[in-house]
């Protein structure tokens, strides 16, 4: 505990020094803190180079609050970010500097976002949408297409009940339907992934996965999707799905593999794999079990699930995550290779961000706000200045004494006063 506090102080001083010296920021991370339901305290945390710049970033920048229960965040292009604020019925658009640009309430009960840089696609549990052609009503859920030129909904498409995950591949949207209100409403859980032509917003196919309630984070790695199914918490167990969008578009009747593991929180890695923290719960026993997966989706699909699924996470991540109170999200920064996971704790206190280097060696933690669970990394300054691409360096048995900076880059000659990592431990070069 004391160690981490010291680390925070050191990192904060380091960040301050970088600002004062005008040094380029290499790690920029936005995290949505969901807050507490109906308490209007959804927040945005912003982290630079390992230290928290603000746990109320949106509010600090704009002078007003974000709203209630932010649920997803994506980068649309270099100048625009979208945040779905679920209980406020708002889709908030901001710049990468956090400045609010526009907001729309035309897609109530919005859930998850995808974008092709020109349009934003939003899944919604609602049954009504305000479009350029007037109000459209739906029996089930729907996907809305928002033109970022005027932030209006230009088209919609009805999908299954309570659609959740949404991904864009080869001009098509892939929607994971949950039917999550099935235990309250008069319909059953959904089992389908709907495929929509993004240009025409017409449904072109619906793939029955045979697995119910496709709920939670849905990560994408190229043509592959990682989809979670928590089951019904009674008779149907949790599962995970690796879905091949290419095969689905090519007409393969079964373009997916169902894994006997949950993928409750999952993310895409820089090498194209999926990492997943899975939890299964049964109302019969009141007990839950965890699994921790690294999935090679290509190998998994090719082998029909026989290969490509490993019960491990990089470095010490499994043990570190097992010691958390309530894991709430996992992420790898695509620019720096750093790994992150959040712990929501008791759900009434500040959540915690844990950080690992690209090899999975634990670096430290930072306090955030309530229920932090959704990540977006921004391009490092060096990318914008053309310094070059940072690629996570895989661990090698021969690299035992290799030295890395905080962004995971191997350093041949550490500079005096700098903070580096070697053999999984931080040190200050003196």
């Amino acid at each position, binding site marked *: 505990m004391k160690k981490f506090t010291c680390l925070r102080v050191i990192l904060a001083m380091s960040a301050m020094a970088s600002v004062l010296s005008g040094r380029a920021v290499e790690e920029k991370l936005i995290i949505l803190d969901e807050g507490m339901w109906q*308490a209007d305290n959804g927040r945005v945390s912003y982290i630079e180079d390992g230290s928290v710049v603000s746990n109320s970033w949106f509010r600090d920048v704009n002078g007003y609050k974000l709203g209630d229960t932010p649920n997803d965040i994506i980068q649309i292009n270099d100048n625009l970010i979208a945040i779905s604020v679920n209980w406020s019925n708002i889709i908030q658009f901001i710049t990468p500097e956090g400045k609010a640009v526009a907001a729309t309430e035309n897609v109530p*009960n919005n859930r998850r976002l995808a974008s092709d840089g020109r349009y934003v696609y939003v899944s919604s549990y609602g049954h009504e949408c305000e479009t350029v052609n007037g109000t459209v009503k739906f029996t089930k859920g729907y996907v809305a297409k928002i033109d970022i030129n005027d932030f209006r909904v230009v088209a919609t498409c009805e999908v299954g009940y309570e659609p959740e995950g949404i991904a864009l591949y080869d001009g098509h949207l892939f929607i994971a339907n949950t039917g999550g209100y099935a*235990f309250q409403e008069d319909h059953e859980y959904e089992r389908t992934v709907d495929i929509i032509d993004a240009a025409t917003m017409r449904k072109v196919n619906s793939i029955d996965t045979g697995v119910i309630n496709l709920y939670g984070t849905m990560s994408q790695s190229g043509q592959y999707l990682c989809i979670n199914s*928590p089951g019904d918490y009674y008779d149907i167990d949790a599962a995970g799905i690796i879905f091949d969008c290419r095969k689905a578009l090519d007409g393969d009747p079964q373009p997916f593999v169902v894994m006997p593991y949950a993928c409750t929180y999952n993310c895409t890695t820089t090498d194209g794999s999926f990492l997943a923290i899975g939890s299964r719960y049964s109302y*019969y026993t009141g007990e839950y079990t965890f699994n921790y997966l690294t999935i090679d989706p290509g190998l998994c699909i090719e082998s029909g699930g026989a290969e490509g699924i490993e019960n491990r996470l990089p470095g010490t991540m499994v043990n570190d995550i097992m010691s958390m109170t*309530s894991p709430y999200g996992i992420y790898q920064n695509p620019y720096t290779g750093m790994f992150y996971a959040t712990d929501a704790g*008791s759900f009434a206190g500040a959540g915690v961000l844990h950080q690992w280097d690209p090899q999975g060696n634990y670096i430290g933690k930072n306090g955030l706000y309530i229920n932090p669970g959704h990540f977006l990394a921004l391009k490092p300054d060096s990318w914008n200045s053309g310094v070059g691409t940072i690629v996570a360096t895989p661990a090698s048995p021969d690299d035992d004494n290799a030295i890395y900076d905080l962004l995971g880059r191997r350093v041949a000659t550490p500079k005096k006063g700098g903070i580096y990592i070697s053999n999984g431990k931080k040190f200050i070069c003196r």
Partner: protein
Amino acid sequence: MTLENKDKSEDLPDANINHVCGSTDDYLVSIMRILTPSRLLRRSSSALPLLILALPTFYAGAANTTTPDSVAPDRVDTLQEVVVNADMPLATRQTLSGKELQALSTTSVADALKYFAGVQIKDYGGLGGLKTVNVRSMGAQHVGIYIDGVRLTNAQNGTIDLGKFSLSSMESVELYNANRLERCQAPSEFASGATVYFRTRRPTRDSLSAQFKAASFSTFSGKLNLQTSRRGWQAMLDAEALHTKGDYPFRYHSEYEDTVGRRTNNDIRYYRVEGALFKNGFSSHIYYYYSERGCPGGIVRRLSDKYTNVGREWDSDFFVQTSWRQTLGMHSILANLKYTNEYLRYCTDYPENQNTAKVDNHYHQNDIYSSLSYACAPTDWLSVNAGYDFRASWLSADLKYFSAVRRHDQKAVIAADLRRWGFRLAGSMLYQYYKDFTQMHTGAAKPLKRFTPSVTLGYEGRGFRVHAWYKKIFRAPTLNDLYYTQAGNRNLKPEYTTQWDIGGEYTFAQGQWNASAQLDLYLNKIKNRIVCLPIKGTYTWSMMNYGYTFCRGLNANLNGRVNLADWNLALITSFTLQRDLDRTDPESDLYNRPICYSPTFSCGITAIAAWRTLSLSVSNLYVGKRMWSYADPEDMLKPYSNVDVKVDYSLQFKKKYTAGVTLEVLDLFDVQYEHVPRYPMPGRTLRLSLTFSI
């Protein structure tokens, strides 16, 4: 002592009368005895003036109100001094009764309870919001609510919405920390961490009263009260109807927002009819309540009012209960019988509601309760109490994956009370046995069997009373906790509270001056709190045992009163200083942090001035700052100070008619405050009541 008129007898807080006479059935007998000149009652060795018995839970006697019982006849019966030898009450308790109760600006019983030390009210806003009471931070489900000695229960969620009960038919409201400690009590009276007793007023003459009330936010209500007293029987019928839009304005003003609006979906329409019948030790009560109300949500950022989270609720509650208490020599017996039927419909299936599942669920509860207790006092220094309770509850609902549940709840208690040389020692051992039956596919929870003790030691003398007590008790998981679809957890353990208290009180009475002071220091521990949390690493929520709370506090009451010719002046105060700490996880950053929603300091001050039939009462309730999350120091509910003013005047004409008018201003300074973040409470509210009585 001189009693100025007959009605004064009603002003005696009957809790004290019970301690004089030992039990409820002696109540009327005792009054008759008191009204009999020169009659001395001798029950114990402690001799105290009767008026002292009315303290420290103090009454503001002459604050005239317009209810039938409080109409002062012009006849004055002058009686000789009465001295009663009686026990001081042993329990830690606070009482509001008679006209003191009516001097407060209240709309429901919850409003009265907030004037007690150590009480926190949780109110989801306005007239229609759920109102629950939390005593010494133990949680609402550790507070037993009793009407005429029989407990109100809700097997479904264990919480009683105090907004459903009116004070208009109540004689007194009493709060006991731990047990009441009467000679003959039912086991269920021992089975909660704190107990609140509402006692229905027993009519002493025939009367008919009608009241019309108009208040801010389109609030209108009418009330009819009929009372009769003949040949030893007393009967009461009270009916009320209310309608309000509840669309009060609110404002959130801070560095980050300036939100101004009106509360929506906050309307309520209710009807309440209740009656009671008494004769000596027999009492019965019948109650029916029907309401339709909006369930307003939290005020969150929205771009317009186009989509709102509309939920509506319909309640229908009925109960009929009867109680019989008889004392013959050293033997006392108490029998209770009750039937309760409750219906709840909750609907969110409205077009403007886009955010939640569209549900239309119906819940039905039936509950029968029977109890038999026996007490024996073989000597003047010992009494023993034994009792057995049986309750059967049925819950059915049209939830998916839900089947009807039946619960059998049995309790047995044995208690002893020793008194000698001013000392008193009371102890009890309670046994509880819960067993559920259901066809639900999760199966029924395992039967729950537990013994829990309590011990109280007291000493009294020269106007002083000191006491120390210990009590351990649990609350059983409710049927919702165990079986609610996609939340219930049948493996829950009971939530335990352990309480220690040491305190004392001093009473003073001389001439027309009366005063009392009461101080209690306490320590509570609560373990295995039953809470609903998201399950680790899944997206579903479930009831869990999570949490350990350590609470230390101080409750104090200071009261005073003086009668000067036509003037009556009174001051009633209560103070709470409390520190609740989270002791759940020593490894957590939250360990030893204060519990959310719990203020460190709160106090209530009420001043009453009455001149003949004109009275003015001013109340100020202060509640200190409370944190509502641990995440940020700014997640704090601001302290607030609520000042209520009430002016009441009644006029008697033709000797048998009385007309009264009451004007109330609640939250005089229009302070914007919250009990729950983003659920604003109403600001300044005006209320005008007209009453006509025969």
